[in-house]
């Protein structure tokens, strides 16, 4: 990773569209008056969802909305690698290359991108439809290697699986999220190898009878206490 700065070529202006503005207002309202700066991360996210990346006019607009110095917003935008500071393709494929995914074959995923899209890490297709980026640990190591497209994770990829995923994306489809091998969440691949026997249910208890016995004991004790001493 190199130093993060805003891209050289910037659009002239930025404004939240009506829907995003409504969302932004809802987010800002969550924080006490005077603490609206706390909304900076969600607002940057909204800007990125609208434009695809965080532009300089967006940084300045958000600073204005939240009454912050533009530098303070830029600090946040450069701190989190999830914010794209340069334009990305319409479909931005982020490949996790952290250690678990790398051990489990993230290099194959990168190779699949080269083969299917013709682009490598940090590049975009000339038509602007696809771009490939690096992702710091996505926190889904149990299903490594992982690719993030938009808000969705695609897991358990290999050369063929990634190729199939990219083909589907190219056709404009939205493949089912999660493991591409069809495993259930993070359940073991294939058949379970532990806890295979049928679970033994806990012993049945007769709560009604227990309650009756308890009430009876209570009544007996009360009667004994009330009885005159011999």
């Amino acid at each position, binding site marked *: *990773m*190199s*130093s*993060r*700065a*805003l891209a050289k070529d910037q659009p002239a202006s930025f404004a939240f569209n009506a829907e995003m503005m409504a969302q932004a207002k809802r987010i800002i309202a969550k924080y006490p008056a005077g603490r609206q700066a706390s909304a900076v991360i969600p607002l940057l996210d909204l800007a990125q969802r609208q434009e695809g990346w965080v532009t*300089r006019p967006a940084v300045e607009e958000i600073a204005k909305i939240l009454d912050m*110095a*533009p*530098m*303070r917003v*830029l*600090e946040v935008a*450069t*701190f989190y690698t999830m914010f794209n500071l340069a334009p990305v393709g319409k479909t931005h494929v982020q490949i996790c290359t952290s250690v678990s995914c790398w051990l489990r074959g993230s290099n194959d995923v990168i190779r699949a991108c080269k083969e299917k899209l013709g682009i490598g890490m940090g590049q975009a297709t000339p038509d602007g439809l696809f771009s490939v980026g690096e992702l710091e640990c996505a926190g889904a190591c149990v299903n490594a290697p992982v690719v993030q497209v938009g808000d969705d994770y695609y897991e358990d990829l290999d050369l063929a699986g990634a190729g199939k995923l990219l083909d589907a994306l190219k056709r404009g489809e939205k493949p089912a999220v999660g493991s591409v091998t069809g495993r259930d969440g993070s359940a073991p691949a294939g058949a379970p190898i532990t806890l295979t026997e049928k679970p033994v249910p806990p012993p049945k208890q007769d709560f009604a009878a227990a309650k009756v016995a308890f009430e009876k004991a209570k009544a007996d004790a009360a009667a004994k206490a009330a009885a005159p001493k011999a």
Partner: protein
Amino acid sequence: MPKLTIDGIAVEVPANTTILQAAEMVGVEIPRFCYHDRLSIAGNCRMCLVDVEKSPKPVASCAMPVGEGMVVHTKSDRANKARGGVMEFLLINHPLDCPICDQGGECDLQDQAMAYGFDRGRFHENKRAVKDKYMGPVVETVMTRCIHCTRCVRFATEVAGVPQLGATGRGEDMEITTYLEGALSSELSGNVVDLCPVGALTSKPYAFNARPWELRKTESIDVMDAVGTNIRLDARGRQVLRVLPRINEDVNEEWLADKGRHAIDGLRAQRLDQPYVRKNGKLEPATWDEAFAAIVGRVKGLSGGKIAAIAGDTADAESMLALKDLMSAFGSPNLDCRQDGAALDPAVRASYLFNSTIAGIEQADALLIVGADPRKEAPVLNARIRKRFLRGGFPICVVGAATDLTYKYDHLGTGADVLAKIADGSHAVAAALKNAKKPMLILGMAALTRADGAAILAAAKAVADNCGLVKDGWNGFNVLHTAAARVGGLDVGFVPGAGGKDTRGILEAAGKGEIEAVYLLGADEIDTAKLGKAFVIYQGHHGDRGAHRADVILPGAAYTEKDGTYVNTEGRVQRALRAVFAPGDAREDWTIIRALSEKFGKTLPYDNLAQVRARLAFVNPLFAAAGKIKAAEWQAFGASGAIAATGFDYPVKNYYMTDPISRASRTMAQCTEEFVSGGSKHKPSDPKTGTHG
């Protein structure tokens, strides 16, 4: 009041004190980079780790409040080992370029590496290199040296009030930069150089000029504004190479404005280093005797009423006293130190002082600014207002232009007539001032130099009286001067005598030919075209406006070249010491006037500085007490009259060029280009890294 033990010394300190502060109280030094007394606590350098008993880990003493019964060891093996580790990490990415670093010799990192560093490096990987950032004409950057203490970021955000500095990226990629690499547009930007504990931010004009141990250090007073900032002049040979602030809690804390710090290169250009006499319409070099003879030949025999004197904005009290004595000897009542024509009442000291004092701003709880732009007229004082503002509960109102003062305020209007409404209580602000415990009014020169200045002064007095600005132990009436010499001139009594003319009158009379000789003591801010055919003697240090009009030029000394007394806007008498000698034949100013008086046969009764100072103290006993403030008595002043509704014409339009020295300064010209005329020449292309030259 928790009690604790630091290195075996028992101490009782107020609650909420940090361990580091408590250690300072008992004289135990704890190394630090990010901690600074006047900035918020960041706790990110980890150099101040100490060993606290019963604590599982070393503790960052700058951020840890003291606790009852704490036992702190600052020199134990564990503390030393922790600091050694921190130092080793800091040095991983810090270049070993001390021999070519301007900070060398006064570098916190260098010093502390000597004390806590390991004697060899164990890091064999590549060091990181960071592109240098542009921060304007006065701050040079070598960002590879940055250790991310964020002192500069906190200074810009908190003290200077220009939140343009920040840290982008994170971890190894963290970089300190200004927003989009613009210049740091603060009048206090030079202070980040002093704050930087390493050589990442250094002074651009002073780059590669000298090593600290080569410099001769002289204590002086800044004359670029009326705050009277305490400074230290660092000189080598006959040149003052840099100016640094001295700590004075009552005046400047430890800040210095950019003009005071960087206008000194103007002292090397446009200097008057020998006398000149105008012959056949052209100024020609002359000897002192020829110059004096020319003056005596023209002025001797003139009646006192035909002679006048005007003192400039950076004149010292000694020279003004000598000139006043000379004018008395001539029998001339025409003298004035207010070359801007401000309607100040010299008879009542409280009418022309910043009575609340600069430190007093911190006690105030309401502020009304009238016709002043403190950010440009007195940046250090403005920082004090901002400091008070940040503490909260300090409503600020402004009458005048709505400029960015680095704090929020209520804008009451641009016209001066608003003041009259506040004075008669019909404005809502009057009630707010009345309800405040310690309300303040700051009256600027823009309000007093107008034709209706006296009426504005009277209205301000009425506000002070009606809204309870003056009460027991508190005087909230403040005049903010723009000239270092003004209060000194008024205290010396360099004002029109009985029947004498003030600056406006002198110029008018000179234009009509009623005044035949005018003595300008460094007065450059008057309209010299109005002097008509008068014989003009200019005594000063720069070939500026006054010298261009002069018939005889007497080369004087700049503030760095003489022992002078200055009185700041609060009325604090302060002494500046001579750092270097004036160039060529130039002399200290009072000695020139003393020598001239002899030629007229009216020898002034002092031969050395001690005698001049004794005479100063005789004329006004205040001059005997340097560094102190005496509260001025509240008396009647001002002349009621109509106030025009027009806006103010501020005296400081371009902060970077206000006097002959700053007008001759190359650095100030660059700042003007960057910040005032709006034509930054900086192009962000091809940035270099410090290690690759």
